């Protein structure tokens, strides 16, 4: 997503580029409901709607915050740590091309907004089934600015990482490591579910998980393929790599599953799709299709190991955002340092092609991003937790977040339900009942 790779930055809007970016923006927005489906399938049925609603909530909250200040802090000016407030409230964001691209500034804004949304939604995976809905929305509002917008500025908006040469095509730093290491911090601050480690807490619908993963992969073609902001070579390369890498990850994941448990699992396959897509996210426009396939195979290993390790700890990072996003993003960012190829990307070579310095730039990002995401999220949730309880009572958890926070059930049968109408004689509002 570097501006520098767009050699011929013109001041004219290109219709072909704009048409693709309009479609790509819609593709990336679809990823958030897809993530909602993916996450909802992984939790128990009594928390289906709440889990989905955290993703829908992120669409509402992150979009508003992005338009108000987030976009400006990420993409206005070349400040080292954060951008300026020149684009706050969408000031000066119009039909003219965004500097360094051939697409209208408004389209660029909308495309970037969908990244902020999905990243904010990703973090919810660490705290599902126990965090209260209200505090989550407050957290989403603050996190999307304090963590996402800042890290997006570092990697895409002319901040210090981009300035010192870190290559990050579509968001290994702000999206993947940003969400993954924030998720670890969130899980530690909010704490484990009351039944964690005492009962088997099983995914209630593996089909949702597979459909969600499939739709995420579909949307990821816009996510990576749109991150060149054009229909040029970088976008084409990233688009095709988004097919190749996850396919290889899937194949290797099958093998790992088979070796470890003698059976290839469906939930494992869905996880592998995510891990592969995450791995190619930072590297998409920078490495050849051949190396993208190797990346797909390699990225499976550390993420698989972290998932196996994590479930044996007391850390209830419930939906393994750290393993699937943080670790896979870390792998992808470092991979660029070895395998980036000037003849494919027109920007830089990696260690294998003679530039060891690139590996240094990538390693710096791989250290700074996790540290900032973890630290900032930890502090943010500690402060928020002092102001309001982050989680409900044990009884709330027993009843399920759907009834407690939304007054709805995902699988209501209608049996036993009585409509309360003004004529029904129910005068006072019925107290929400004693939990089950």
């Amino acid at each position: 997503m570097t501006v520098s790779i767009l050699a011929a930055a013109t001041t004219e809007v290109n219709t072909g580029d704009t048409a693709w970016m309009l479609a790509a923006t819609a593709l990336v927005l679809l990823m958030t409901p897809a993530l909602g489906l993916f996450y909802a399938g992984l939790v128990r049925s009594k928390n289906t709607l709440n889990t989905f609603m955290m993703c829908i909530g992120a669409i509402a909250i992150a979009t508003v915050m992005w338009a108000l200040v987030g976009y400006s802090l990420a993409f206005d000016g070349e400040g080292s740590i954060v951008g300026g407030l020149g684009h706050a409230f969408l000031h000066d964001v119009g039909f003219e091309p965004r500097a360094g691209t051939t697409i209208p500034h408004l389209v660029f804004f909308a495309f970037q907004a969908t990244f902020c949304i999905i990243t904010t939604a990703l973090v919810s995976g660490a705290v599902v089934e126990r965090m209260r809905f209200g505090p989550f929305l407050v957290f989403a509002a603050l996190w999307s600015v304090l963590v996402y917008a800042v890290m997006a500025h570092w990697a895409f908006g002319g901040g210090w990482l981009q300035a010192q040469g870190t290559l990050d095509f579509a968001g290994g730093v702000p999206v993947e490591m940003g969400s993954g290491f924030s998720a670890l911090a969130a899980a530690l601050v909010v704490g484990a579910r009351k039944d964690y480690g005492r009962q088997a807490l099983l995914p209630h619908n593996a089909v949702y998980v597979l459909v969600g993963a499939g739709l995420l992969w579909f949307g990821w073609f816009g996510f990576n393929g749109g991150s060149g902001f054009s229909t040029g070579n970088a976008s084409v390369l990233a688009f095709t790599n988004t097919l190749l890498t996850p396919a290889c990850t899937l194949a290797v994941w099958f093998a790992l599953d088979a070796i470890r448990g003698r059976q290839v699992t469906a939930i494992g396959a869905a996880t592998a799709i995510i891990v592969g897509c995450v791995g190619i996210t930072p590297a998409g426009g920078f490495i050849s299709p051949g190396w993208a396939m190797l990346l797909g195979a390699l990225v499976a290993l550390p993420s698989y190991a972290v998932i196996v390790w994590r479930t044996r700890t007391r850390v209830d990072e419930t939906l393994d955002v750290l393993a699937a996003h943080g670790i896979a993003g870390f792998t992808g960012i470092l991979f660029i340092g070895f395998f980036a190829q000037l003849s494919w990307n027109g920007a830089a070579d990696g260690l294998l092609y003679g530039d060891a310095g690139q590996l240094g730039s990538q390693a710096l990002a791989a250290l700074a991003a996790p540290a900032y995401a973890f630290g900032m999220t930890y502090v943010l949730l500690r402060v928020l937790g002092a102001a309001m309880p982050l989680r409900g009572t044990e009884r709330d958890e027993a009843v399920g977040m759907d009834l407690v926070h939304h007054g709805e059930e995902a699988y209501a049968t209608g049996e036993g339900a009585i409509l309360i109408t003004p004529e029904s004689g129910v005068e006072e509002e019925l107290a929400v009942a004693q939990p089950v």
Partner: protein
Amino acid sequence: MKMVIAYIRHEAFEPIRADLLAKGFPSMSVSEVKGSGRQKGITERYRGAELTNYLRPKVKIECVVADGDVRTVVDTILTHARTGGVGDGKVFVLPVEEAYRVRTGEAGEEILQAHPDAAKAL
């Protein structure tokens, strides 16, 4: 022989199952049921319609035990199912005429013997 039928909260099931297993009672049938009692309904909202659902989900446990074991099983259920709130559930004890083991055709109370090693076998 007695049949113990318990209607309990979902969250009470796992502690009861684990404790009964440890005491040598691995055999039971479990079903998800809905029922009404003194516990109030829960208010829900769907597209502006407000409704109250008086049927609350419960777990039903059925197990048949020898007369001498009834007290142990019932006490185990009562211990773990009690929160002190309305809606904790009920336990019923019913007489049972006869019992047969399908695999061998054996009959009588012997086939209900507690299995002290049940937990270890898992």
